[in-house]
């Protein structure tokens, strides 16, 4: 296997993403599927910021994904019929909630951290489920739709034009990916890697580990709520299932499947997972068994993920 230059790989990824609406239909896909892959990839990459690059396992990211989605949906429906304002409120809601939960969990590690993130995630699920006067309870928030994007000189119709929405999602995705790449390359990001590799040593070097983990947690939840906001816009609908714990599991398996140690890994994982889910759920009623089996097989046979295997093979 020839070693792929990092820059060539980046260029390849962007070229594929930019042209996706044109070749997807020729390989049996559809544009909306591409948008869904982008959104889940963003969520999985956001999770991987914490999981792969800080070494902290969160199993509750669906909550902040859902908060982003609910914030967007409720704002557009009740407060202000504008797509950017809705997204902004959604993102702020998710990030704010994560910032509040953060201090309670950053002192915990390993399994304990994972358990507490799951449990705290369920709080928001129950709120969405029970507070039906606002959130619509089990029925979710419907009867609204994404608004055209008003740029001043022109207006982009996101609702009627699938491709327009795909490129809108891709633009948001690109901004977020660039921001994450920038953060990971910065001294802050390098410090996170140091914490992942050896927490005790990082602590001895005088790095405030808990504060860094808190910051990484909030940043990760910020980007996952961006993904949630896009998810609400894509479906023009949100319900509590968007924030249930199985959703968190999906994000984690995407990151693992693609390769936790690489930046683009979660994107590949998300593409495989979403396409597979789309196919299996259209073929059989028992898609849960297949997804479950898929989890088991990934853990047993692909723990390093697709990119992990490629990278290992590329090494002499």
């Amino acid at each position, binding site marked *: 296997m020839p070693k792929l230059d990092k820059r060539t790989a980046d260029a390849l990824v962007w070229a594929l993403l930019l042209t996706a609406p044109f070749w997807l239909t020729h390989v049996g896909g559809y544009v909306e599927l591409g948008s869904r892959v982008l959104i889940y990839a963003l969520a999985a990459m956001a999770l991987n910021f914490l*999981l792969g690059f800080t070494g902290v*396992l969160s*199993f509750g990211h669906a909550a902040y994904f859902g908060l982003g989605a609910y914030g967007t949906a409720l704002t557009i429906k009740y407060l202000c019929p504008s797509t950017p304002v809705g997204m902004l409120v959604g993102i702020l809601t998710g990030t704010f909630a994560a910032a509040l939960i953060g201090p*309670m*969990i950053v*002192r*915990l*590690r*390993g*399994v*304990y951290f*994972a*358990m*507490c993130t*799951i*449990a*705290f995630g*369920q*709080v928001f699920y*129950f*709120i969405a489920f*029970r507070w039906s006067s606002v959130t619509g309870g089990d029925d979710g928030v419907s009867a609204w739709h994404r608004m055209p994007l008003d740029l001043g000189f022109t207006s982009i119709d996101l609702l009627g034009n699938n491709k327009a929405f795909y490129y809108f999602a891709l633009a948001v995705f690109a901004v977020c990916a660039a921001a994450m790449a920038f953060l990971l390359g910065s001294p802050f990001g390098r410090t996170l890697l140091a914490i992942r590799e050896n927490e005790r040593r990082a602590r001895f070097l005088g790095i405030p580990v808990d504060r860094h983990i808190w910051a990484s947690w909030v940043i990760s939840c910020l980007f996952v709520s961006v993904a949630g906001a896009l998810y609400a816009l894509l479906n023009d609908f949100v319900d509590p299932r968007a924030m249930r*714990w*199985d959703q968190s*599991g999906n994000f*984690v*398996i995407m990151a*693992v499947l693609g390769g936790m140690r690489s930046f683009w890994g979660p994107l590949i994982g998300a593409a495989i997972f979403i396409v597979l889910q789309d196919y299996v759920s259209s073929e059989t009623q*028992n898609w*849960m*068994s297949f*997804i*479950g*089996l*898929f*989890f*088991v097989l*990934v*853990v*047993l046979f692909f*723990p390093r993920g697709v990119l992990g295997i490629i990278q290992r093979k590329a090494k002499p």
Partner: protein
Amino acid sequence: MTQLLLFNVFNGLIIGAFYALMALGLSLILNLSGVINFAHGGFLAIGGYLAYTLVPYLGFWGALVVAPVLTAFIGILVERVLIRRLYGRDPLYGLLLTFGLAFMIEDGTRLIWGAQSLPFSIPDWLSSPLSNEYFFLTGYRVFMVLLVTLAVAALFVILNYTRLGIRIRAGTLDLETVSVLGVNVRVLRNLNFGLGIYLAGLAGVLAAGMLGLQPTVGDNLIMPSFIAIIVGGLGSLPGTLVGGLLIGVASGVTSVFFPSASEAVIYVMMAAVLIVRPRGLFGEEGRF
């Protein structure tokens, strides 16, 4: 009012007993093997459904004895084939694998027994109220509390006075040393997993009698069981027991005054414990 309060406290105690049974099993497995068993709720459902199938042949009492044992055997088998491969690896993989397992079990029970809710009949003399004034004191509920108490006592005896139990506790503290002393750790973890699943199966039979059966029966119980462990403190079985009863009673009492918050209150309790005492009420410092 007093009656309502008593009713809800008692109800909370029963629900708490469920949480505690589930959480004790989870805790046993987590302490010795370092695996969070997401599929625990699935094993609970298996216990309930097996009992449902066995009742026509063995009667209620026979099913109550046999179903949890069969569930434990399934658990032992699953440990040998799948869970065993997770030991010593990042906890991430344990979560993901048991997560997938939970999906498969839920779908499997739906495939075998159907998606609709099934009634589970208990003996008539158990389902009638014991007194007119305290209508909620049905024989079955009192029986459940007694049985859970018995199960917990038995677990205590096993862990403290049998060779297996002492080895399990020793392994929780230092598995390597136990292994060096000549104990077969693979078998120990295997049996320990079976013991934990037995408790889930038992909880499943009891839950079937009270809540009826559907494939998702374990779903509503697994999250509170996690919280019972967190509140009680990781690594402490008495803590888990207390945690389970505590959150059960707390949600029961809350449902008197503020019904819609009966689920939220257990999360508030968890947050309070994490702020004041991050290792949990009975947790040892520095263990996790």
